[in-house]
């Protein structure tokens, strides 16, 4: 059980070109923290620095209060699960699980007991004498997890452990991981670029882009109250709808004047006074955009005209692509409220509306959030 503290952590491979910039984070004991971000955002680098596989250019990392900057990976008492499993092909499953215990000179009886119990927990106890090449992807992934579990480390570090699995298996392993973390309660840092994994597994999410933290918050806050445009656009599928608008004052009331249309701002949005005459970015999630005929919003905007470009069925929802001028909006509509037949509506001009209670506003200059619902 351990806490992890990262203070001003910076990493440069080439002098003056940081891939991780001034990274600060406190991870509580037993917490499950997910680093989320696009490829190349530096999330794996931070994980590898915690493991001791990369040196820090600047800053400090503490595990359980102890400074570990100069500590070899083997002395940090962390266990890591790699993206490509990194299980040893020349050892059996048993050999793989026992590998770390042998290094730590764990007595044979105890080693055997721990290997057996971890194997049982992961359902790989039948394969203990097999070589990894005779195992399926999911089983290999379990071996990799098992190798981390038997160690009973202070910290688990997981680098996109599910990304090599097919979609169905990934969902299953995600569920198993979630069960496992509840059972073991070990501090975990988990790296992924899959937002569903991040939102379902993490106690807290660290959203990263270009080596910098964008937002640290629980999954609910990340989704509903994104700190900036990057977070708002990265989390959520389909992505949030954005459009540029100028804040204007008309007859004492505030309005948003877009290129193709304008919206009246309801009084519940505060802090917008300071932006009169300036440009902001408005954001609506697909569920906050609707065809007027189907809109059930309490505080809807005046309708604007748009042309339906496409309709995509996705299970219980339909995604409706509507273009207004040169802005493309995606609206999510529940099938339960009636099915739109693609061939009947594509190309038609329809009025759409937005849910003003769910508007996100961002400062165009700084890209930081001004207002979240």
């Amino acid at each position, binding site marked *: 059980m351990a806490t992890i503290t990262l203070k001003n952590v910076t990493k440069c491979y080439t002098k003056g070109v940081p891939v991780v910039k001034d990274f600060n984070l406190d991870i509580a004991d037993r917490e499950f923290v997910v680093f989320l971000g696009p490829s190349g955002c530096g999330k794996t680098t931070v994980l590898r620095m915690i*493991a*001791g*596989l990369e040196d820090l250019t600047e800053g400090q990392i503490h595990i359980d209060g102890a400074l570990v900057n100069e500590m*070899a*990976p*083997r002395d*940090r008492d*962390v*266990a*890591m699960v*790699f*993206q*490509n499993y*990194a*299980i*040893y*092909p*020349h050892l059996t499953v048993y050999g793989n699980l026992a*590998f*770390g215990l042998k*290094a*730590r000179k764990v007595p044979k009886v105890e080693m055997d007991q721990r290997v057996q119990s971890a194997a049982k927990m992961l359902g790989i106890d039948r394969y203990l004498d097999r070589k990894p*090449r005779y195992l399926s992807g999911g089983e290999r992934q379990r071996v990799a997890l098992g*190798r981390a579990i038997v*160690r009973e480390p202070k910290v688990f*570090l997981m680098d996109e452990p599910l990304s090599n699995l097919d979609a169905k298996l990934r969902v299953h392993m995600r569920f198993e991981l979630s069960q496992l973390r509840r059972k073991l309660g070990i501090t975990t840092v988990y790296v992924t670029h899959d937002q569903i994994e991040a939102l379902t597994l993490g106690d807290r999410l660290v959203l990263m882009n270009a080596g910098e933290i964008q937002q640290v918050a629980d999954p609910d806050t990340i989704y509903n109250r994104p700190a900036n445009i990057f977070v708002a656009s990265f989390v959520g599928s389909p992505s949030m709808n954005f459009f540029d608008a100028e804040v204007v004052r008309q007859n004492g009331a505030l309005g948003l004047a877009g290129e193709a249309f304008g919206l009246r701002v309801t009084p519940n949005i505060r802090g917008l006074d300071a932006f009169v005459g300036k440009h902001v970015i408005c954001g609506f999630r697909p569920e906050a955009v609707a065809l007027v005929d189907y809109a059930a919003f309490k505080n809807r905007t005046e309708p604007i005209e748009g042309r339906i470009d496409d309709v995509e069925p996705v299970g219980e929802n339909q995604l409706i692509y509507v273009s207004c001028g040169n802005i493309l909006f995606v609206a999510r509509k529940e099938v339960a409220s009636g099915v739109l037949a693609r061939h009947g509506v594509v190309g038609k001009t329809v009025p759409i509306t937005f849910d003003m209670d769910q508007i996100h506003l961002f400062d165009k200059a700084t890209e930081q959030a001004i207002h979240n619902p």
Partner: protein
Amino acid sequence: MFRKTSLAARTLFIVILVTATVWTAFPFYWGIITSLKDRENVNLWFSVGLPFVHYTPTLENWIGELMLPEMQHALLNSITAAFVSTVFCVIIGSLAGYALARFRFERIPNKDITIWFFSLRVLPPVAVAIPFFIMMKTLGLLDTRTALVLSYTTFNLPFAVIIMRSLFLELPPEMEEAALVDGYTRFGAFFRVALPLSAPALVSTALICLAAAWNEFLFALLLVSKNAMTIPVLISGGEHSRGVEFWMVATRGMLAILPPALMALLVQRFIVRGLTFGAVKG
């Protein structure tokens, strides 16, 4: 594949194959049959007469050669020099190759070091032959097996380094990193993970170094005379005042082939795996 090809194409194909086979196998055939002939039968049937048909084969040459003290000595010298230099090459080569594949050297970039090793390999050995001779003379090592081991190691090491480096580059570093996190030192990770996984390629490298050392002629000719004479030098000296004694040269040639051929047979399953290592991702 034959079904769709014409008779002419098939014939051409067979002719090419047969020619190639005869071309490569003939020296061995000649060597074997000549080593089984005595003095009188050597030139019989344009020297390609068949044993038991055209003459009665004899093991006289083989027994004679093997009993010859200078032959025994040369065999021992060749075996010692080749094996010891190979062991050095494999040990130093795998460590250096690993370092080049895994660590980033700051002063001189890894690529430059590798190219330097490679340049040693393509350098004509004769260019350094005289300086090497002077060095060995100064060190008092002329005509010793140590001189052979030193020169063979020097010239085969770059080869071992280059092969081992490319091999380790193909091994995913995560496996060693997993070992580091699991509680091993860098050396532990190298010996317990990287080295076992590269065993097939290591065997191939060893065989190539062994063959190069076994066949080496120039330095052996230059650095040793009597005490440390090797097989290739001995064979080349097989010309007597009576002319070339083909039966003797053939026997010595076959004797020279035997040890590396036996080694290759012994480890052949490793060779194929080693040479195709990394061709298909596991």
